[in-house]
């Protein structure tokens, strides 16, 4: 993203004058605070920073950032952000979305913006529920979720957001919990520096409609999380256990001392990344941090390049010439053709 001149900014500078309208105890507060703090530390230019969201509790986010912001319509934030970034590559464009906004109604735009690698920083608040519409199950809700629209339990198999993002060809895929400000901050900073589409799954708690859905993982970080570190083995349970690739390419939990324990690299192969994506509750601890990161030309840069090339090749557009293209003839004073 645009190399920001280091300014002395404080978190306060990133706070808008609007009252925050989330429920008390909502995980969104922590994410908001971390984003504000991180951008302040990075010393971004407020005027060059834009937050674009869809519709949902999470999508109220832009109102609370003292930057440019656009609270759009349900599921379409990636399209609006794409149009902005393609025409204004000078801006830092962030997208805020939810598991319903970004994966249900907005799923198509999500996979296409990721495959195009538009230089957008997408943060998906995954609370496994539709908060704003009062608690229906979402595409990430576990099978059997009892919600107003599924009183006897949901029956569709949930999406794995990470697997989907990888399947779509994302170039930067990460995961963090709303309760882990430190990791969130680290990921946000890396995301900010990545040139290309960023997909961050934020595990967020909705105390009102889906309270504690991530508690298993949050309450036992040692046992249920693998905090990824470049070049470090995939170990957890205080370094006692690890993950290896078992027979038939099935991921397995093994002893940390096992020589087969996999070593993490953000720049790993697509196959390795898909293995990380398969590590989900309850059978496995979940990898937290940056799972996958690769550099690929961005759509916005290529689009601008094509314009530059055209100008270099054909010279800057000349309207008169353009008008005269095709078959042109003159009619003289006598009104007939010459």
């Amino acid at each position: 993203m645009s190399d920001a001149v280091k300014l002395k900014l404080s978190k306060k500078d990133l706070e808008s004058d609007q009252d925050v309208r989330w429920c008390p105890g909502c995980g969104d507060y922590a994410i908001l605070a971390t984003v504000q703090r991180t951008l302040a530390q990075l010393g971004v230019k407020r005027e060059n920073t834009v937050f674009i969201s869809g519709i949902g509790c999470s999508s109220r986010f832009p109102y609370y950032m003292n930057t440019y912001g656009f609270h759009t319509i349900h599921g379409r934030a990636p399209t609006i952000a794409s149009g902005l970034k393609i025409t204004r590559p000078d801006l830092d464009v962030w997208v805020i979305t939810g598991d319903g906004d970004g994966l249900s109604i907005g799923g198509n735009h999500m996979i296409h913006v990721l495959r195009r690698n538009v230089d957008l920083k997408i943060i998906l608040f995954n609370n496994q529920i539709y908060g704003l519409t009062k608690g229906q199950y979402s595409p990430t809700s576990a099978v059997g979720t009892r919600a107003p629209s599924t009183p006897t339990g949901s029956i569709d198999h949930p999406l794995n957001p990470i697997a989907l993002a990888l399947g779509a060809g994302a170039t930067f895929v990460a995961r963090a919990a709303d309760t882990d400000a430190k990791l969130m901050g680290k990921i946000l900073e890396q995301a900010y520096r990545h040139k290309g589409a960023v997909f961050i799954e934020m595990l967020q708690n909705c105390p009102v409609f889906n309270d504690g859905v991530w508690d298993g993982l949050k309450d036992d970080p040692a046992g249920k999380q693998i905090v990824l570190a470049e070049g470090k083995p995939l170990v957890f349970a205080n370094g006692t256990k690890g993950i290896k690739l078992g027979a038939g390419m099935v991921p397995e939990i093994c002893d940390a001392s096992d020589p087969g324990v996999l070593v993490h690299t953000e720049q790993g192969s697509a196959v390795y990344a898909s293995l990380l994506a398969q590590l989900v509750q309850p059978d496995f601890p979940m990898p937290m941090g940056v799972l996958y990161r690769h550099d690929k030309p961005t759509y916005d840069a290529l689009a601008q390049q094509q314009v530059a090339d055209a100008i270099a090749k054909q010279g800057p557009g000349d309207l008169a010439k353009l008008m005269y293209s095709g078959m042109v003839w003159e009619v003289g004073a006598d009104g007939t053709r010459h």
Partner: protein
Amino acid sequence: METKQLDRVVIRFAGDSGDGMQLTGSEFAKAAAEAGNDISTFPDFPAEIRAPAGSLFGVSGFQLHFSSSEIYTPGDAPDVLVCMNPAALKTNLRDLVDGGTLIINTGAFIEANLKKASYTTNPIEDGSLDKWKVHAIDISQLTMAALDGSELTNKEKGRAKNFFALGLVFWMYGRETEQEIRRIHQQFAKNPAFGEANVKVFKAGYHYGETAEVFQTVYKVPPATFAPGMYRNITGNEAIALGLVVGAELAGKKLFYSGYPITPASSILHSLAKYKNFGVVTFQAEDEIAAIGAAIGGAFGGAIAVTASSGPGIALKGEAIGLGVMTELPLVIVNVQRGGPSTGLPTKTEQSDLYQAIYGRNGESPIPVLAAKSPGDTFYCAIEAVKIATRYMVPVMLLSDGYLANGSEPWPLPNLAALPRFDVHHRTDPDNYFVYQRDPNTLARDWVVPGTPGLEHRIGGIEKDALTGNISYAPDNHEKQTKVRAEKVARIAQDIGELDLAGAPSGDVLVIGWGGTYGSLRQAQQALGAQGKRVSHAHLRWLSPIEPGLAKIIHNFKRVLVAELNMGQLRTMLRAEFLVDAIGLNKIQGQPFKVREVIAAVEDLLGATTAETTAAVHQAEAF
């Protein structure tokens, strides 16, 4: 061999979608234009890319009207019909004028093809064509002969036969061949063998005309007289693309076009994608919603943002247009209409998306709507759409249709220097900036773009406070904002020019039309006027707000006839607006109006005798 002079000719080429009729037609149109005739064309092709040879639904046609006087339409009925196969004959013969000339490729009238066209007997032999001047020529065979000894496969040779037909009509109308021969070579530069072959066959066709006994006369259509100046041929979609580029230039901004392919709108994207050196950025989105979403994002960032589609795609944009209305961002939405509902008749023309343009969104979400009247007019409409969108900070809908999009006409090149600029100003002054503070005249809010220090703000789809732009659920504020959004559109009237009226501002019948029907309606009015009938024609460019000029005259006529290629959508709007008992002339056949249909309807209102009607029709043809 006599030479006969004609004022005007309507010729139609018809054959398989694979027979290259579109090419033949447009080449002959160019020749006519080069010869100084006024021309108007009407391509008419099937939805299938290349339907199986010989099938009825696979017939592709191209009609050309060329004349030594001004013309407005591609003509009601062909004087000359070229049929490359039985299916083409079957589907087109009914349109040929009695006594008209019929050129048939007998080579294609074999058992199999006749069956596909459900002919039980061969029409060439069963006398069913007696009332026409028939020229039965084995074009297939003559083409082969012309290419005797060439390297090409027989299949490839066969493909050249349309150039035989082209050469033949070149001779019939005494057209210059050098130009055409040069063009053929250019077109096939990548594949000289084909170019060579096509030229050979073209010449063969020409010489066949010369030498064969069959043609007793050569026809001459002298050049028409035009206003002096530079001209080019242009189709509606080409002209829209040019208009958008020029519009952005006049606004002093860059153009961003975001679309998803759909017939008949796709070629706007195709044209603009070639204009990258004008700083134009084009984006082929994953669907129509993404297309308008990206356009809205571009508008937020300060681009002249445009999206285009056709009916079904526009339906998908409805929700996002509402976001544009609420956030008051400038946007141009082009609808190149086609036959509906649903997928309908994708390659045919219709005007049935007017309701959708005016009313097709949730909530109170009025937007300005204008419609182009001719291929060349789309250029000026595009510029006007850009101007109004940026001046009033509002999404503007521009209506075109399949007939305008693909049809072409000689177009006087605009004097660019004379086009007034309307440079856009982005506010940068942070002192007491309020996001929804409005210009007292246009009611537009400031267009502040990201990147401007000190003006950071947030917008969105929830109702906004009338001054600060913060979310507001206040009852009075919502009513106020709703009324301002409506008033803003109403005020555009102050930027709308004179009503396009032909005939007196009062009389017996006022024919009201909009969009692509202009040519037929105007020609009908002139014919009737010449007959001394008190008939006028008002053609609306602006549909929302409704042309202010109309209110002044609509009550001055005994009868009001609203002619549309739909079931009466504008008629409904005008009845509500003016409480006038307007009646409708409506055609829903995927085809433009014939001038005679319009004349008949008006005469009907005038209670005319058929004698008079025919007189007027001849009058019309005399134009």
